[in-house]
């Protein structure tokens, strides 16, 4: 089975193709350039380098949220357009599961965190059991204080990663009561290789959607909806 992985949920734009136990190519750029300008040229580079015939793909795996609203939609629209033109299904890989999969096989807990602004992080707590990624806390938007309390409550050694780490590192260091680590540069941001590899597993498990059906899971309402809900709640 062959899967294309795409993640443009954060500052990193990343594209990869994985086939069974091989990563054929991965192109990851962490540079301030708009994803809409980089994502397809990166895929094109991979296609040319690896002489890839897109019609041989079995599915397109895409980071399905949370993340930057616009970034998620660039990835989603790209994946949906490819799915439509190629007649292939999509595999929705929750962004934080993709991030956690970077640290496959560790016996510690894994906590990916993305800066969600408004004093919150998008985060979840994961572990590997019998070679499977398991969510101890599914992805959600919470304050770092709430997250550290949960981590302390679990009482296990833990590895943090994601673009939320540099933002909240000091708060974490001050409040954590369990042994902790921060993942190094090559695995602490989104990697499409992980999205594609996890995508292969979900594909094998039949977890696909029609390209038409995919929509990002933002984990948050838009500001206008939130304000309207607050107003209605107050009445």
């Amino acid at each position: 089975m062959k899967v294309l992985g795409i993640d443009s949920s954060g500052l990193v734009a990343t594209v990869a193709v994985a086939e069974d136990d091989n990563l054929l190519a991965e192109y990851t750029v962490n540079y301030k350039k708009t994803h809409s300008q980089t994502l397809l040229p990166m895929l094109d580079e991979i296609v040319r380098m690896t002489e890839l015939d897109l019609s041989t793909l079995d599915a397109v795996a895409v980071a399905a949220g949370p993340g930057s609203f616009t970034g998620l939609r660039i990835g989603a629209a790209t994946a949906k357009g490819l799915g439509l033109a190629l007649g292939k299904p999509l595999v929705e890989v929750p962004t934080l599961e993709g991030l956690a999969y970077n640290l496959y096989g560790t016996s510690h807990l894994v906590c990916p965190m993305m800066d969600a602004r408004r004093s919150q992080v998008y985060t979840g707590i994961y572990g590997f059991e019998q070679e499977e990624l398991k969510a101890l806390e599914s992805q959600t938007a919470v304050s770092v204080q709430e997250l550290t309390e949960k981590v302390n409550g679990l009482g296990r050694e833990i590895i943090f990663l994601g673009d939320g780490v540099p933002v909240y590192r000091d708060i974490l260091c001050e409040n954590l009561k369990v042994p902790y680590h921060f993942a190094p540069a090559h695995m602490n941001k989104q990697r499409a290789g992980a999205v594609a590899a996890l995508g292969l597993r979900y594909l094998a498990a039949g977890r696909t959607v029609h390209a038409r059906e995919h929509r990002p899971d933002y984990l948050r309402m838009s500001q206008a909806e939130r304000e309207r809900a607050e107003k209605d709640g107050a009445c």
Partner: protein
Amino acid sequence: MEEKKDVLILAVESSCDETAAAVVRNGREVLSNIISSQIELHKLYGGVVPEIASRKHIEKINQVIEEALSQAGVGLEELDAVGVTYGPGLVGALLVGVSAAKAISYAGRLPLVGVHHIEGHISANYIEHPDLEPPFACLVVSGGHTHLVVVKDYGKYEIIGRTRDDAAGEAFDKVARAIGLGYPGGPKIDKLSKQGNPDAIRFPKAHVADAPYDFSFSGLKSAVLNYLNGCRMKGEQVVEANVAASFQKAVIDVLVEHSMMAVEEFGFDKFAIAGGVASNSSLRQAMEKACRERHIGFYHPSPIFCTDNAAMIGAAAYYEYMAGTRHGLDLNAVPNLKLGER
């Protein structure tokens, strides 16, 4: 002689609050024109909310494109190009259509043609008027735009007049809200005006010094709001139909006046209107009359091609395609794209 091959274009539009796709043959024949409108959703907020619009676009984009292809009975392999609006508009909304269109063009090995939204509106006139060819003058009036444009040739435009503040459609929306009609204001004011006296209240018609073709509607909008406030303070009954009709007349008078001035100055024998406000029945009647008096051909699209749609983008994309315009995989959404810019 070699028979000229048909050119089939799939067009995508997502610049504001309509998710749309169409298949157009040779720039003028619409094989399908699918529009998924979000108006009901945005009514709750009294106007278009960009993030909500973008979210709806991503939900609908594939369905709309699939419907356009299936209704046209055309497969991707039969297409010659993919056209897409890449500006101006809401950046998050534009990005959905641009990203999807690029992916389809890439995976389908089809040339990509980026289209200016206003060029699309102007080109809507080609769909139902086989005789209309440049040069002509065109007034583009919508919720986001008020442009008086000289169409020199296909793809060659000169904007000779523009609004200095509110777009005409925006003024309709704001006045409609002030008299309690709700969103979108254009059709509601158009309807209510039919029961009112357009000469009941004299609202100012703003002219911009040193720029005879430019427009300004914020003063007019303020005058309406002041009038309403004044009535409330004095305890006078407001006749909404008269306010609507008098406001609408003030807008239309200026639009007609500037348009006809341009037509006479440039010596055109053809004049067209385009954009959402081009559906306004009083504006059409007034323009038709003004053009008839001057023995000028008057062109306007059917309402379905006035509102944001992808058929008009397909029409514009065809002429760009024939002129050799091609965009790369790095095409980005340009929210403030200028007409005629590449």
